[in-house]
């Protein structure tokens, strides 16, 4: 007896990635030999080591989850749907480190490796997680000739009004990070973008093996094994970053996470975080990251913004601000600039150029994902709010943070 098991309703191995949100799956009998009844009772469980990822199951998209799930599979081969979620607090550390196992009684009749792929605190990554991330990032940069050029060119003075200083700041950067993360995953599917908690010391981040260490003038150096030593932007190798704080022992300047989450329960208040802590995290350094036209030349930029996005996700969860039809979930105003209203498509993914949009649109559409369909190649501002698919399961963006639960 054999079964066909599909995660995210896809046969592709590149779709076998889970978050805290329910992933739609299906299972069917492909060989019912030995079955004596019209349906076969099977049990699904997750199998993994103590430090590996862990999963739970649901029969439907909503409701409670359990560590195992009993299903009845028709012998005619019809598919039976179910849902799998990463168990909160137990993300994977390596690709395929959790098996979804299917049993008929005590006999294993199917098994599929999966990964609970979650954005984690960069300071707590395992060396292997860190190295996979760095390797993928260096390949995306490809000595200044790779696809990263587009990401660098998206974040300049020309495109800045599309991304900053108005309510679309957070949605735009959420799409920007997602686009980059999906490109990294096209290189190594096991990579998730880590975040830098800038309100805490991160001694494991500012090391020669990770984001590098800065000398007194801000030239960043790396160990010989670190592929970021080949980082090139704008034709110039290397990274300039001079922290104005002791990066080994201190946090950057700016308000704390608790203070940020206390900015208010309406988006119109919370968005003030663009100045502090976001702006202060940037300006806690000299070098690339401290100015808009050069900030994206530093890989740390993306870890900083992953934390900005995480803070938004935390705030969304605290105040239930996922529904774009709820006024407090966004700062809607008829006079918002273009690109900063919920129904607006966002530059550069929409490809629109010329005033009031910027003169060029680098990079094309937003990268797709083998695991989820949203937000599509031309995301709108409103597509970035319901990232876990709470309001609409189809809106799931396919990422989660290690400390932001689904419910």
């Amino acid at each position: 007896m054999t079964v066909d098991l599909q995660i995210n309703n896809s046969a592709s191995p590149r779709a076998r990635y889970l978050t805290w949100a329910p992933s739609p799956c299906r299972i069917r009998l492909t060989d019912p030999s030995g079955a004596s009844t019209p349906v076969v009772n099977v049990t699904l469980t997750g199998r993994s080591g103590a430090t590996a990822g862990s999963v739970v199951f649901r029969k439907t998209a909503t409701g409670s989850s359990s560590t195992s799930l009993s299903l009845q599979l028709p012998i005619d081969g019809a598919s039976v749907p179910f849902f799998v979620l990463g168990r909160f607090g137990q993300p994977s550390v390596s690709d395929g480190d959790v098996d979804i196992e299917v049993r008929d009684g005590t006999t294993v009749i199917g098994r599929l490796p999966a990964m609970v792929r979650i954005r984690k605190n960069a300071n707590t990554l395992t060396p292997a997680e860190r190295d996979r991330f760095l390797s993928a990032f260096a390949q995306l940069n490809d000595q200044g000739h790779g696809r990263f050029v587009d990401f660098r060119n998206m974040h300049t003075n020309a495109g800045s009004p599309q991304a900053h200083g108005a309510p679309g700041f957070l949605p735009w950067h959420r799409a920007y990070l997602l686009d980059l993360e999906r490109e990294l995953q096209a290189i190594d599917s096991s990579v998730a973008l880590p975040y830098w908690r800038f309100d805490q010391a991160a001694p494991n981040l500012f090391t020669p093996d990770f984001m590098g260490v800065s000398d007194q003038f801000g030239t960043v150096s790396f160990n010989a094994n670190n592929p970021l030593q080949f980082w090139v932007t704008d034709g110039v190798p290397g990274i300039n970053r001079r922290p104005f704080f002791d990066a080994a022992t201190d946090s950057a300047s700016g308000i704390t996470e608790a203070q940020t989450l206390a900015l208010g329960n309406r988006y119109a208040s919370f968005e003030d975080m663009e100045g502090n802590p976001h702006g202060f995290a940037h300006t806690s350094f000299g070098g690339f990251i401290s100015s808009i036209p050069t900030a994206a030349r530093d890989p740390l930029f993306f870890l900083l913004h992953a934390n900005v996005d995480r803070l938004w996700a935390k705030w969304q969860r605290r105040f239930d601000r996922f529904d774009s039809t709820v006024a407090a979930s966004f700062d809607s105003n008829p006079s918002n600039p273009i690109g900063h209203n919920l129904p607006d498509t966002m530059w550069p993914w929409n490809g629109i150029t010329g005033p009031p949009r910027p003169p060029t649109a680098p990079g094309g559409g937003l990268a797709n994902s083998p695991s989820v369909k949203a937000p599509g190649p031309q995301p709108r501002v409103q597509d970035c709010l319901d990232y876990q698919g709470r309001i609409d399961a189809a809106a799931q963006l396919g990422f989660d943070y290690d400390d932001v639960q689904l419910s």
Partner: protein
Amino acid sequence: MSKARNKKRGKRAKPKRASAVKMSSSAAVTVATNARKPVKERIAAMANVTQAVCEKDNKFQALLKVLRNMNEPIRVRLAALQALQAASFAVVQFESRRADYLATLRAVATDADPELRQRVLGLLAREKDGFAQQRLLEGLQQPGKALLPPEKALQLLSYDIHADAYPVARMIVKSPPNEEAKREALRLLAADASSKPLFERILNDKEETKENRQLSASALQAIAPEAMQTHARELLLDPKEYDDIQATSLTALTQFGTAAKVEKDEELLKRVASLKSAGSNKLKRGARRFLTKYGS
């Protein structure tokens, strides 16, 4: 910042919570710019001035005045600079402030305090500001006029590879005032494809510093990737080569090598296999990654 947005649009009032934040931000500017307040209190207040700086021109001007005032404590001036720079990230609101901000930065670019000079010139250089570029170049050509050490000036000039800095960078590589200046001159020249022979020479020169050789590897990988892959192979096969350079070579081959070519190179594979078992820790680590990608 949202309060400023609403004011600019002339639209609805903000919720009560945000008004309180706004008051606090205006009050923060009052504290931050009050010379009679303790320095520590003024610096702490700078963390909350961003909104008010965007909303009110008088608050913005008050902060600029602190930045310009050489009689103010330098720590307060530096904190004012950081607060203004953080506010500048809100480009839409800050646009009307931008000209005054840049003019003030140019005014303090020649300040007596070296730290302030360095930060301000850095900000201007990242904006590709012609005034800053000119002053940096002048300082390299006439050291008596230098606002920054040569290595920092070169680093800042590398923000704009059209800054006509190649001739002076080549001059510094030939006759460097210090190793750091040579390193930064090389980094600047890495954007110039005609510098390939220079980087090949340095990469293969065992008398050069490790930093300059690794930088040359990075530059070559960018401007002449095939040549770098050949050099990386030769450096790895050289039993007298230093560990750091061999580790860098391994990283170059692992990250950017062509599998079809590397996997047929038995001599190279054999050498890396030997490093995996008998090399230093960094070579073992690099060899493991290489063999994971290319080995059987």
